[in-house]
């Protein structure tokens, strides 16, 4: 289980994340929801080791994660950047070498590319890929590295309907393999379809958490959008 306790991050006088705590079990998809500026991306950057939080602990299966958490947590940012001068396949070779994968990884990598519809783009340079393809390249690289925790920041933005469906199905498959997945999104409908639970943030603070049904019962709103607006109202 991924456990976040009291995570805090400031930028000067501005509090971006304030004492945030939540957990994600293995085999669970949790949605991080909140209005613009709620602190979702900052939370992800801090969890992945890009930013140093001023407070809080991050642990996986009871073991506190330190600076080498790249073995455990992988981030797919909202703006998926890949190396412009590496081909899709070379990204996977680099990940395989970095992770010292056992021989035979090429088969898995090939299957991943085919599944993500990147089979024909194997030798395409990163600079020539569309946003959706870059995102898929990052997903393929992340799945090849096989980290137990995946953070996806607004993963559906920029994907066409077919791509969104493929990604959704892939995330459901990953859930069955025991990955702990956290998704940040603005799309309430997507969150409803994808997430087992949601955590709602506002101004960097925890607002509510639970399944959609639990939150509906608590707030007394049936419509998911109304529910979200009610919870994040000032």
């Amino acid at each position, binding site marked *: 289980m991924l456990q976040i306790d009291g995570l805090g991050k400031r930028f000067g006088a501005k509090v971006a994340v304030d004492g945030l705590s939540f957990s994600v079990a293995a085999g669970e998809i949790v949605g991080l929801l909140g209005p613009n500026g709620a602190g979702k991306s900052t939370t992800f950057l801090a969890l992945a080791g890009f930013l140093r939080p001023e407070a809080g602990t991050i642990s996986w299966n009871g073991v506190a994660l330190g600076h080498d958490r790249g073995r455990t947590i992988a981030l797919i940012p909202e703006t998926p950047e890949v*190396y412009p*001068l590496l081909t899709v396949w070379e990204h996977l070779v680099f*990940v395989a070498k970095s992770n010292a994968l056992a021989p035979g990884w090429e088969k898995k990598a090939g299957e991943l590319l085919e599944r993500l519809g990147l089979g024909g783009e194997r030798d395409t340079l990163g600079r020539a890929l569309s946003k959706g393809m870059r995102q898929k390249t990052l997903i393929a690289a992340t799945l090849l590295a096989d980290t137990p925790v995946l953070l996806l920041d607004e993963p559906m933005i920029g994907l066409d309907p077919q791509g969104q469906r493929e990604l959704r199905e892939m995330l459901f498959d990953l859930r069955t393999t025991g990955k702990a997945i956290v998704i940040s999104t603005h799309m309430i409908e997507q969150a409803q379809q994808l997430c087992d639970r949601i955590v709602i943030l506002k101004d960097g603070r925890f607002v509510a958490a639970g399944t959609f049904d639990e939150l509906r019962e608590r707030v007394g709103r049936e419509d998911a959008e109304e529910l979200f607006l009610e919870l994040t109202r000032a």
Partner: protein
Amino acid sequence: MRKDIAALAYLEWRIRVNGWRETLRTPSKLVMVILGIAYYAIFSVLRIINVRAHGDSGRLHEPFATLAFCAVLLFMVMPTWAGARGVLKIFSSFADARFLICSPLREEIVIPYLVLRKSLFSIGRLAMMALLYAIIFPMVGGITGMLFGFLGLFLVGAVLGPFAFRVRTAFGASAAYCIAVVFALVAVVPAAAIGAGALWTGAQPLAHAAVHLGLGRAISAIFAGNLAAMSMLYALFVLLVLLSFFGARDLYPEIFHASYLGMAAVAQRNRGRGNAPTIRSASQLPKSAVSRTSPRGMTGAWAILWKDWVTFRRTIATQWMLAIGTAVALGIGIISGDLLRSPSTALAGGMVLSTALTSLFLSVSLVATVLLDNDIGKPMWWLSASSLRVRLYVWTAATAWRMILPLAVGLVAFGFASGDPTVALLAIPGAAVAIVFLRSIGTALYTIFPWNGGAGSTTGMLRMLLAMLALAPPTLAFIVGSAVAQQLWFGVFCAAIVTIGESALFLEFAVARIAGNGVSIAREAA
């Protein structure tokens, strides 16, 4: 550890190989590379022939050797200060950060790799510039000594930033700033003493003392190719790398934050292909910089002038650059003007003036390309009711004033110091004509060579060469005008008229090139 190094070597190797393949596949880039190589080959052969005929006995004499040392050290203050401030592009892109932070590669291996790559990248970019210096300054040293000397100095300069950054993370920002200040003092004090000695005989003992410190000997020995001096230079580089990141752990967040501005700039240049992830600004805008209403009259293309002014007020670094540039121009104006008054120091005055004017020429024509690249790639720039021609003219004016001001101050100072008040009277129009001319050259060349490889790249060097050719018409006009009227000022007047005409032609050329192609030019540059 071996596997980590192998993975990083693979990454670097594939990026380099694919980069060269892309260059070879792009005809315009290939032509530029061939032209660049031919350019250097021709000048190298000429230099070798010259060496065979006259011997390779170039040597930098005092006090110029000490001044060169001070200049090199002053140049190194900039990366040291940036490292001390915590602004340093160690991760080259967000892809770099994503793939290296989210990986099991050991940080102790990754960070030295990033620093070395940054240094090697500098070599790649600056090797041509080092060779150019070695070719065009035969009086300073041997070609091998100068080439490897410049490369070594560039390497030390490249790693000083990470070193100061490491000092900042280990001992705090004050300690890092102290290093930068010490460098600045070691650079400025001897140079000021030498300058004072040249201006005032009472200060000559100080100048002699500065020369006798022996700082110039180090530079002379390096440029002469002295093996011991060269070895010490490269040993210093290795030492700085080791001191920077030996045993460094848990620094990724600080390095990511320090690299953020640079990475965001890369992502912004690659607009349309993704933007930067958001890190909130740590500081709020000062109240004085907030503009809630648009000023009257600044509509249409004039909105560019307003936008540039608002941006200027919000950018502390630009304001500092203007202040420092004005102070430097004032100093150069006074020193060179005063030196030119006396026949015994006229040569030194001429050297100071010509070096300053050459630096101005190169920097202004280069900055034009960078600024235009920043603007025309943005959709906002194209949302205007005014024609492209008017917008480009206003843009040139809006971005030129920050350079006109220091030059005008420098010319006024030069005029009074040299005892020629006419120069001071014509300072403002003269500076305006000169800067607009240089900006228009840079703008026109940018539309031909949009590949933004920096000043040290092959393209950058070709741009410089063509920019120098653009100086020919005003120079000819000055010579012919002066000769015909037997009046120096008539020559200056003729040169000014030709300069204004040529500026307009360059801007018209740029308008024709950019019309309908602006965004694609900016993307090609990226």
